[in-house]
Every structure is written in structure tokens, then in C-alpha cells.
């Protein structure tokens, strides 16, 4: 089967093109979706891409979380469809209450862009099953509002239930509590993270590695994991 993964474009999305390209490289068919529509066009999985939707007015991701298509996104997520929120997309998922917690201005008050080392903390999600548990990966990070926060009790719950999906290694780039870079919902179909897997999917355009400059493709397993999840669900 050809897995179809939708990438929703909002006003101010920047990484929708790269997300579509990552989907294609991983072996699925990318489907361009529009925020103002109520039609998911029968896709099997969804990516909410990075950018600065609505200029980050009000709060990052807050107005996009109220976009027409988000009612269909919420329904699909509730039915178990794999949904990945990257950066601004992660902010939309927390604003839409599809993931717990919140994202605030980076503690150092600066926009930051770096190749970021992460540890994959959970491989039991739709977007991480192709990783090894505890695997260290490097993918780009670029954000201004990336500080993950939640109450102490919520953080304890996330840790206790294994819902922390990714943790920053080496440098905590934005003041995120407990070095959390990404989380998953209880069912594991909804995942959000601040760093950008879609920018590390093609040799020549990814982070530097010890093997060669710009050869890092640690973002690919995100998308192949989702493809496997869709195929497994259909079988």
C-alpha cells in the first residue's frame, strides 16, 4: 500500500515543503493540506509543520490551534491516526490540548539555531518505533519559544508513564524543564517535539556527522516509523 501523509500548511508555515520532502524520501506520498479546509483528504497520518503561524500572535501556535482543519485533526487523533507536531506544530498540539504542558519563550530570550543532540526516550510511539531505545540522534533545532513547561505533578506523570519521547543531550537549548525535547500522548499516536527531523532526511542537507559534512539523516526514522504504524494498523 502507498501510505499517504498529510502536511498542513497554515499562514506562516515555513517547513511544510521540507516536511513533504521528508515524507517522500521515507517512502510515503505527501499530501498538501490547507488550514482553512475541513478536509483531511483521506490521509493516513498528519504532520503539523514548523514556522510562525499567524506571526506567533497571542501565543505561539494558539491561533493555528483554532483553525478550521484542527477540528478534523482532533477527531483523527482521537481515533488513533499518527500525528506529528514539529516546532510550531508542537506548539499547536499543546494549544489544542492534544498534548499536555506548554511552550514559552526560551529562557535565554534568544532565537536559537543549532544541530541538537537528543536521546530517544520512548520507542513505543507511532513516530519513534524505528529507533533503538536510548538511541542518540542529531537533528536541527531552531526556535524562539521552545521552553517546555508543565506542573511538577504533570512532569512526574509524563516521566512515570514513559511519555517523554525525546530529551536534550549536552546542551539544554531553551530552558525546557527536565530537558524535555518532545512528548507523546498516552496512546502514542500523537508526538510533538521542538527540533526538526524533516531537516535531516537527505544526505547533503542534514547536520554534519563524523563521516561527512551535512550527511546526517537521523530524521528519516520518524517518518518510516509512521509508515510502519499505518501499514500495521491496516493489516
Amino acid at each position: 500500500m502507498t501510505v499517504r501523509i498529510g502536511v498542513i500548511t497554515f499562514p506562516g508555515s515555513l517547513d511544510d515543503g521540507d516536511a513533504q520532502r521528508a515524507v517522500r524520501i521515507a517512502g510515503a506520498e505527501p499530501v498538501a493540506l490547507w488550514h482553512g479546509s475541513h478536509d483531511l483528504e483521506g490521509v493516513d497520518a498528519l504532520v503539523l509543520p514548523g514556522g510562525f503561524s499567524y506571526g506567533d500572535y497571542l501565543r505561539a501556535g494558539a491561533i493555528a490551534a483554532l483553525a478550521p482543519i484542527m477540528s478534523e485533526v482532533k477527531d483523527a487523533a482521537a481515533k488513533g491516526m499518527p500525528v506529528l507536531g514539529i516546532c510550531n506544530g508542537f506548539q499547536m498540539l499543546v494549544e489544542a490540548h492534544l498534548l499536555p504542558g506548554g511552550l514559552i519563550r526560551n529562557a535565554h530570550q534568544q532565537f536559537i539555531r543549532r544541530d541538537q543532540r537528543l536521546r530517544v526516550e520512548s520507542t513505543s510511539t507511532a513516530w519513534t518505533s524505528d529507533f533503538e531505545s536510548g538511541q542518540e540522534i542529531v537533528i536541527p533545532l531552531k526556535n524562539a519559544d521552545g521552553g517546555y513547561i508543565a506542573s511538577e505533578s504533570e512532569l512526574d506523570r509524563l516521566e512515570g508513564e514513559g511519555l517523554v519521547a525525546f530529551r536534550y543531550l549536552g546542551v539544554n537549548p531553551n530552558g525546557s524543564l527536565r530537558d524535555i525535547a518532545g512528548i507523546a500522548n498516552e496512546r502514542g499516536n500523537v508526538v510533538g517535539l521542538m527540533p526538526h527531523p524533516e531537516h535531516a532526511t537527505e544526505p547533503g542537507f542534514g547536520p554534519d556527522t563524523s563521516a561527512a559534512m551535512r550527511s546526517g539523516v537521523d530524521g528519516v526514522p520518524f517518518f518510516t516509523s509512521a509508515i510502519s504504524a499505518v501499514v500495521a494498523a491496516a493489516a
Partner: protein
Amino acid sequence: MPTIVVDVMPKAELLDPQGKAVAGAFTRLGVSAFSGVRIGKRFELTVDGEVTDEVLATARQVADEILSNSVIEDVVSVEVVE
């Protein structure tokens, strides 16, 4: 025309990076009268006509559900200003 003013502040226990930056500027300028700065948001909701209880209830609702995010912010006040 009546206006409903909604004030939203970052939660007290959270770091407010913007306020911290302003406090840093005070220190550099030698302004020592203030020990801290926190920055919030003020929304002015314009009402055509009378502010009924229903309108005020709607204002409180949008303040809680849209204008603020209860994970990171508190609605400090919802007040009618003529």
C-alpha cells in the same frame, strides 16, 4: 463605547524571560528602585451596546479559553471600562 479589559499574566512561579530582560536593563541604567519586572498582556474588547451579564460571561469565557493558556498564564482581571 464600553470596553472590557482583560489582563493576563504569566504564572507567578514561571520564569518570565521578557520581564527578566527589562529588569536587566534597569540594572544597567542604575534604576534600583524595583526588584523585579513581569510582563503580561492587556486585551481591550470593544462592545457595541450594553455590557450585559451575558456579554461579560462571554468575555470571561474567551479570556479563559482563548486569550490565555492556563498552563502558562493566569487571567488576572476582566473589567468593564466605559
